[in-house]
């Protein structure tokens, strides 16, 4: 094994080529660290071992928090703190007033679910104002697809990896050394 660690950036000019190459490389036992693409390449996730995101579950929990807060708030404002008799329709119990509270409860549920999810998404992706971009080549946001493979994560040495990669329908390969 070589002492230096190397990172491979393998570029393809088509999503189908990338997909075929990823399947071929994974079949040889090579671990692909990541894929950079200009749009979602459907079906790549299971091939390179990416798990399903749990963002939707998080969103559901934010939404339920919103429902609870809205009901708690309206119970406090309208029933507990200052009950009023409006047009002969007194507000002395939450359950009797519930129909009037449905719209605001719904809106607040959506508000918390949507914004909670959006904030979680931005934080988990590390995409925030002023963050530096980490795509290896500017063309990956246009029409090129790049696979990232680390020698560190693979049993194969750099020469072996290079020959395996070159067997696929590749456009460009860049190999860089990096300090671990």
């Amino acid at each position, binding site marked *: 094994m070589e002492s230096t660690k190397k990172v491979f950036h393998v570029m393809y000019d088509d999503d189908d080529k990338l997909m075929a190459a990823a399947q071929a490389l994974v079949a040889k036992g090579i671990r692909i660290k990541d894929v950079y693409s200009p749009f979602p390449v459907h079906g790549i996730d299971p091939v390179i071992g990416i798990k399903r995101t749990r963002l*939707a579950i998080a969103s559901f929990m934010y939404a339920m928090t919103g429902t609870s807060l809205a009901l708690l708030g309206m119970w406090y404002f309208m029933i507990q703190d200052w009950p009023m008799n409006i047009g002969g329709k007194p507000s002395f119990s939450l359950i009797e007033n519930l129909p009037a*509270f449905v719209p*605001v409860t719904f809106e607040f549920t959506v508000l918390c679910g949507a914004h909670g999810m959006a904030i979680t998404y931005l934080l988990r992706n590390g995409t925030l104002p002023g963050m530096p971009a980490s795509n290896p080549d500017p063309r990956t946001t246009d029409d090129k697809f790049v696979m990232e493979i680390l020698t560190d994560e693979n049993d194969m040495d750099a020469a072996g990896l290079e020959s395996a990669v070159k067997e696929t329908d590749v456009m460009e390969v860049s190999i860089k050394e990096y300090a671990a």
Partner: protein
Amino acid sequence: MQQEAAIREPLILGNKSYKDITDDVVGPIQGAAPLGWKVMITISSMVAFYGVGCILYLIGTGIGVWGLNKTVGWAWDITNFVWWVGIGHAGTLISAVLLLFRQKWRMAINRSAEAMTIFAVIMAAVFPGIHMGRIWVSYWVLPLPNQFGSLWVNFNSPLLWDVFAISTYFSVSLVFWYIGLIPDFATIRDRMTKPLQKKIYSILSFGWSGRAKNWTRFEEVSLVLAGIATPLVFSVHSIVSMDFATSVIPGWHTTIFPPYFVSGAVFSGFAMVQTLLLIMRKAMHLENYIHTKHVEYMNIVIIVTGSIVGVAYLTELFISWYSGVEYESYAFINRFSGPYSLSYWAMMTCNVISPQLFWIKKIRRSLVATFILSIVVNIGMWFERYVIILTSLHRDYVPSSWSEFNATSIDVGIFIGTLGIFFTLFLLFARFFPVLALNELKTILKSSGEEQKRLQADAKSNTNA
């Protein structure tokens, strides 16, 4: 790869590659502003400034400068509010509902339709804000502890529901739109060569790198946001309609209002999308992406929602007689034969008769006819809200309170001004933002591109032979 029936019309015309899509959308942003754009933004910003002047005069003087009186407490202001909110609905419908239904044609129009939504909702929010009279205490609509011991806002009132509905709708639409924009800003960032532009788009793109995991999350967020924005868009205009429906005013307190308002909103919103996109596709040379088929699909939505609106008008009219309530039937007789009957018949012609022309395929696929009819529908939908609000209010239960409403120059100035602000914002969007959802269009290129479809069909006929 997903296959699509060969008989389906392609959504992207010509022989486009992924790179061509980027070039066609990012090219105009990199180049100098065309003369037409400069002329349009000058006119619209001048109109916008005039509108802002009228608003400031109104705030400084009081809402007496509008034509309102004791009987007619709502007129142009709330008409404009409902009109703008309604226009906003098409954007969310295109981006959320059509996403859930997996309609690929939405991808060419969703970005600009969402931008339209956001700008229209901002314009809508102006009206209840300035209608309060004392806009500096507008935070009183929120349930904040106060020195009155604490006296809370009334959660039984649809006007307060509106506060929650509109603010949720606006902020969720904005976030939905921006999350979709992030990868496209990254595309622009990576193409820009001038340092300042690169810096600006780099900040806007939040450091997006397009990793596989990022895209998985992106798709999940888009789907879930679409899922919750769908009931949201229906709830918003239902709640707007309840501002009227929960009152005791003849012509307003009808249970048909929520579905009637929602379909009216979609109807007017799609008309506005047509108006804007037919100009934009020409000015920005996007004819290959937004073409006759897209226009036809939108016209079909206009026929459906326009017909629902037409049925609702006739239902209202019938029920006002069938209910046997004399106030109710008077309200409707007064609508079509009273002092504002001209508005009523304008509404009927523009909203019920004119969209039916779209049953004819030639008209439905004609861009000129669509453009003219889209403006007719926009006018008709403004009159609808005007008729509902004004004719119901100007006749009170007590005849001595009967009154008339005449719009003042400030009424007109503020309305025209919001149009100016809206178009200024939209023009800025068209100049500096990616007007098509690049990343989404690229995903449908292989299944719905014209050349790609032709190649597939050829391959198929070769294997059959």
